């Protein structure tokens, strides 16, 4: 049997009230045995690396010393992702249950719920949900509203925001799970992963489904809860997409990779299987680029966005991403300089691993996948085509 995050009242009813949440799922369960349940569930985080949740929790649980800190990451900075705002706006108490269970399992005395300011109703819903919880729980819980910036969701940036009010990444080490807020070991976990924890603590045998934001060619985003065995093609067909209308698929959002349409159609969204093929399900964005659209133009647009979202702290990221976006724009404008493509390849390799956070790595992986999938567009760019990502 599968746990379903979006079970319960229809989603267009808005937030499930606390009383209804408790009637449906029962009270907050004990955290006894939770680490073992997490381990056997195979639950993985929703960053690009897909790090096992159990391993991250264990590294904090096995420490000696004082209380830890838990941060629920609801910053959802990825422009194509909508799953976290939907989850927070409709099932806020699953997120709070998961964060409180993490605090119990990891002996944390403070829990911060970080929500980006631009996520429609999510900040207001989470604030109202917090106020519905018993007083003893409210004492540990704090809501922190984050600025709507791409890098604000990076874990060291979140810790920095909670500590100092500035949502830019810091130089790691030490990593937040070793020394985070107030030098205490700090768990930074995506809100969907915490909501999964809330269900796993109640039904340990279940294998988690995944929230995905689907963009079929020519239509807006739809959030679906899908089994890991679902093929990307099946997922997109479920929201009106078709292979004949799809040139390529962007998997994992702006930090993800382009995959040729027909190859993508047959891939399962199982994060483990995808990683073996060099892809990442990451934040769960599956976005189709329509047939007839130009891969160079779309890649330029995304790279310019990523360049402007650099927090401008590290030279290779600040200058490198601007240079990459500029070179793509020259190709797109049919003004490529001699050796432009070779330089793009070299720059993309050189910026990797040379920032305090993974922002340049994400942009580099995105561009390298574009050069593979849209190689002919880059080599002989003439026309701009029509259409783009949703």
């Amino acid at each position, binding site marked *: 049997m599968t746990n379903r995050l979006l079970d319960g009242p229809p989603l267009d009813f808005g937030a499930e009230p606390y009383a209804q949440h408790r009637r449906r799922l029962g009270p907050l369960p004990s955290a006894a045995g939770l680490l073992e349940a997490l381990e056997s569930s195979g639950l993985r985080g929703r960053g690009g690396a897909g790090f096992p949740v159990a391993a991250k929790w264990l590294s904090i649980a096995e420490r000696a010393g004082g209380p830890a800190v838990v941060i629920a990451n609801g910053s959802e900075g990825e422009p194509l992702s909508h799953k976290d705002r939907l989850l927070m706006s409709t099932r806020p108490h699953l997120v709070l249950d998961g964060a409180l269970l993490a605090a119990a399992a990891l002996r944390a005395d403070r829990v911060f719920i970080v929500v980006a300011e631009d996520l429609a109703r999510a900040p207001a819903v989470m604030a109202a949900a917090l106020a519905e919880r018993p007083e003893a729980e409210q004492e540990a819980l704090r809501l922190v509203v984050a600025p709507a910036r791409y890098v604000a969701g990076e874990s060291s940036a979140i810790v920095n925001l909670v500590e100092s009010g500035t949502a830019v990444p810091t*130089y790691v080490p030490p990593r937040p799970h070793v020394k985070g807020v107030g030098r205490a070991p700090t768990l930074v976990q995506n809100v969907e992963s915490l909501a999964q924890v809330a269900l796993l603590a109640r039904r340990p045998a279940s294998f988690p489904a995944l929230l995905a934001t689907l963009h079929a060619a020519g239509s807006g985003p739809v959030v679906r809860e899908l089994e890991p065995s679902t093929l990307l093609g099946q997922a997109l067909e479920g929201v009106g997409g078709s292979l004949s209308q799809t040139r390529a698929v962007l998997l994992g959002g702006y930090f993800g990779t382009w995959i040729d349409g027909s190859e993508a159609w047959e891939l399962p969204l199982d994060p483990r299987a995808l990683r073996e093929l060099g892809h990442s399900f990451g934040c769960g964005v599956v976005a189709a680029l329509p047939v007839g659209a130009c891969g160079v133009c779309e890649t330029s647009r995304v790279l310019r966005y990523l360049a402007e979202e650099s927090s401008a702290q590290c030279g290779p990221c600040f200058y*490198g991403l601007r*240079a990459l976006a500029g070179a793509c724009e020259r190709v797109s404008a049919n003004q490529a300089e001699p050796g432009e493509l070779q330089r793009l390849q070299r720059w993309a390799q050189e910026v990797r691993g*040379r920032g305090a956070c993974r922002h340049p790595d994400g942009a580099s992986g995105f561009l390298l996948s574009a050069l593979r999938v849209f190689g002919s567009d880059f080599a002989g760019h003439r026309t701009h085509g029509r259409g783009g990502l949703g």
Partner: protein
Amino acid sequence: MSEELELAVDRTRCDGSRLCAELLPERIRLDDWGYPIFEPGAIPAHLLPHARRAVAACPLLALRLRRPGED
């Protein structure tokens, strides 16, 4: 046997002074914007004095030596 050491840099501090690459060109080259790129792996023993000089010369104290795999 002496300890193995490699170069590491705090990228948020480094402002591209280029001094490190001048003092240790065997292990450090510069990207097109003047920021250092390191040869991966441990510094050979005969270059360690030069590496220490490069670390000491960094005007922003961004460069350091660490044991491989250390944070």
